[in-house]
């Protein structure tokens, strides 16, 4: 699972470079997220704009990555494609994340988030 990471305005933007976060890749995703966010800013934004499919394993892995950040840090989501968005809404997991239309919006909307 390839992730990219840049820090801007004190926010760590993590991009997922895979079309799917599914049962075949959920564990790798979690591991890669753990490495990527081991150290770094308190505010992480996960850019999902390249991802067009997640299943409940992928969803669980995203939630696990957020929980792993610990209490003092936060993780927002950005750039969700419609099918990914639907999984969050059906499971009501859209309620536990601040969701931004795009990565750039996430970086500028910091105060509002």
């Amino acid at each position, binding site marked *: 699972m390839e992730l990219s990471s840049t820090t801007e305005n004190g926010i760590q933007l993590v991009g997922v470079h895979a079309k799917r976060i599914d049962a075949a890749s959920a564990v790798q995703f979690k591991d890669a997220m753990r490495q990527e966010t081991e150290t770094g800013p308190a505010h992480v934004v996960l850019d999902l704009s390249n991802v067009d499919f997640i*299943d409940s394993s992928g969803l669980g892995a995203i939630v696990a990555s*957020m929980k792993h950040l610990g209490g003092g840090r936060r993780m927002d989501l950005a750039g969700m494609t419609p099918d990914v968005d639907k999984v969050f809404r059906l499971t009501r997991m859209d309620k536990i994340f601040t969701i931004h239309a795009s990565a750039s919006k996430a970086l500028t909307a910091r105060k509002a988030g």
Partner: protein
Amino acid sequence: MGSSHQFTLRCRAEADAVRQALSELRSALSKLGLSEDRLPGVELAVAEALNNIVEHAFPGEKTGDVRIDAALSGKHLCVTLIDTGRPLPNGRPPVEKRPNPDVERQDLPEGGFGWHLIRDLTDLIAYTRAGEENRLQLHFGLPDRPEKQQTP
């Protein structure tokens, strides 16, 4: 009933094989004319059902074959998953509460979504254990093209 089509796919009960099978399912359904806006929901429902088979019908290192029968008309899609793994506990899909998002961060659910998603995305689920076989039918109504074609 209009024209109807059937096909069968097979895969190993392993995550990589499931991914491959889903891709084949999607392109086969697309070729047969299932509308593009229905494909993601169908793929997700079948993915969840296959993931359950990988994880629960063949737990741990165990694996086996899964047969995927699909039948499609203009009004209706039925996907049947057949495996010879362990049966569903209590002989039917579990009916549990939806995982609750209104909890402390450390208690947030990381699983337990699968059957709820399957129910949300289908019109009917039917499970039967027959001999050594699990047969799970996922039914999808296709209300987009309600017109009834005449057969000869």
